[in-house]
């Protein structure tokens, strides 16, 4: 990977994750919500495969092995031998299904669910971060540029919000308004902006004394246009760094909430609630909890890495 700066690599990795989430329906080998023959398809280890017959009554029969005899289909299903007359099948040609990461307690394909979960986790994270960055940049800029009572009021609000653990705050909102994806995004965004506000305020304090800002003021520019056109663009580098750290935190918080059942509700897949689904069978089916956790880990590491590379770039 010579010739690429750390930042480029970080951004490329981020884009790859985002692209993967975007085309998840194309990448996913199966429908993430489809349950074929739960009794034989649940808790299958990674790499297992099944033969799926469709029955005449539109149910499905998923078997491990089968032999087509003269009049009947002899098979092994969920470890037990059985047979079924051929007339009951709508087709004697089975569909072979491979489950690369195994299946969950309902016989759904884990790989497909993790891929679809990526869409949920990443898009929620993206919106929450957009809210957080917008709030943080706006309040930091106003606070640093105007000073006075606006500064004091905003910074005290930052103190208050910093003291409340955000998971507890979300819990309270969930109790009052009922858990939903919209609430999740609003609370995660609304409790994630304080760090960004502090950093932006510090930067604006120094930027507002620079000659180009004074020039803009002398030319009669309004407060909003000076902030938007001259001051905030100078903060773009630090904002990018904070945004990637906030995104990592937001994804961690979202997965925690979905894990305890207050975030994304099943049957929608999110990384947190897939891990929760694996809790009941930790020994027999370790893969259900393990793989979505690895997905969180990888995403967070990429975000931290990109953030660190961006801050190194900004410091140069």
């Amino acid at each position, binding site marked *: 990977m010579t010739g690429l700066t750390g930042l480029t690599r970080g951004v490329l990795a981020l884009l790859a994750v985002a692209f993967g989430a975007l085309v998840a329906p194309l990448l996913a080998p199966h429908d993430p919500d489809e349950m074929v023959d739960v009794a034989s398809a649940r808790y299958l280890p990674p790499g297992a495969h099944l033969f799926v017959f469709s029955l005449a009554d539109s149910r499905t029969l998923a078997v491990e092995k089968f032999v087509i005899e003269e009049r009947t289909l002899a098979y092994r299903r969920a470890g037990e031998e059985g047979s079924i007359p051929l007339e009951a099948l709508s087709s004697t040609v089975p569909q072979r299904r491979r489950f690369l990461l195994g299946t969950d307690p309902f016989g759904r394909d884990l790989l497909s669910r993790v891929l679809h979960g990526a869409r949920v986790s990443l898009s929620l994270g993206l919106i929450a971060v957009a809210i957080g960055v917008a709030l943080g940049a706006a309040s930091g800029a106003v606070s640093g540029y105007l000073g006075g009572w606006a500064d004091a009021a905003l910074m005290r609000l930052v103190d208050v*919000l910093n003291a*409340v653990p*955000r998971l*507890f705050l979300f*819990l*309270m909102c969930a109790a009052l*308004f009922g858990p939903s994806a919209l609430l999740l995004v609003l609370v995660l965004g609304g409790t994630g902006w304080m760090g960004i506000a502090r950093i932006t305020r510090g930067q604006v304090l120094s930027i507002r004394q620079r000659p180009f800002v004074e020039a803009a003021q002398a030319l009669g520019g309004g407060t909003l246009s000076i902030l938007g056109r001259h001051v905030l663009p100078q903060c773009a580098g630090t904002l990018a760094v904070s945004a990637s750290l906030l995104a990592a935190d937001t994804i961690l918080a979202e997965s925690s909430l979905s*894990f305890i059942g207050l975030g994304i509700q099943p049957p929608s897949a999110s990384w947190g609630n897939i891990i929760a689904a694996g809790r009941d069978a930790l020994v027999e089916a370790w893969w259900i909890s393990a793989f979505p*956790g690895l997905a969180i880990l990888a995403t967070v590491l990429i975000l*931290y890495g990109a953030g660190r590379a961006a801050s190194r770039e900004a410091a140069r």
Partner: protein
Amino acid sequence: MRGYLGRRLLLAPFVLIGILTLTFLLVNAAPGSPFTPEQASGLDPHAAAKLRELYGAQGSLPARYLRWLSAFATGDFGVSFTYRRPVSHVLRAALPPTLLLAGSALVLSVLAGVTAACVTAVFRSRVLDRVLTLACTALYAAPSFWTGILLLMVFSAWTGWLPPSGLRGVGAGQLGWGPYLADRLRHLALPCIALAAPGAAAVALFLRSELIAALASEYCRAARARGAAGLALTLGHALRNASGPVVSLVGLGLPGLVGGSLVVEVLFAWPGMGRIAYEAILARDTPMVAGAVVVAAAVTLAASLVTDMLYLAADPRVSLVASPVRIEGAA
């Protein structure tokens, strides 16, 4: 510097009032109010008025706000809908397990983090350093509930070495003090490690780079010239100077620690405040949740004031106004 600490102490009550205001606004912004005729059509008006008074739901908004503030100031957190007992009684029973879990996780994260940082700094660029640094990076990025799940998988489900849940074993009260203590520790081990892991990793990674910078400094060169080397040099000279920012790092991670204890408590069925708050949500027990949020915030606030004082003790030269560290605790 002392002025800064004084200002923080003076501001603390106002931050508390801010927290109470925030919770009050949230409770009152929620749709519907309890015991209104529309909600319970069969309810006798007098009984409804009595209930509203009992649960503090009568009067105008400003009047309720003042009552909310004064009630919390006197330690009256209202009456829980589900327990039908004062919220403060329920929380008083739930606070010690949470403090035990969060406190021991805090101690463990500092001890393990400092140890790992010293080892990696001394064996810099060798295999041991690489492996430990990689492990710390992974632990730092992993959500604590997932670390907890993996711990459960290995130490409880596969090997059966440690109990998966609860505060103590059945009948632990009948044990002598030695086995009783062992039983409590065995129950504490997994949740404590899961909660401490992200913080320990953050301390280790951060302190490692501080130590490496300190070891390259003039005073460490001088110490080396006088014959100090290896672990003695790191512990005796570099660590002391590098420890100040670590205290502030730990302080910044406190809200994450208290918030993380919520998820860990739910995972390990630990009967603390987080679990009480979680169960209260499922029951829509608003006073209980509000009380838990206020207490969690107050604990966080008090703990961060204590870390500020420790920071001052660790490094008297330091200025707290512009904190150089910004690490977000893994939620």
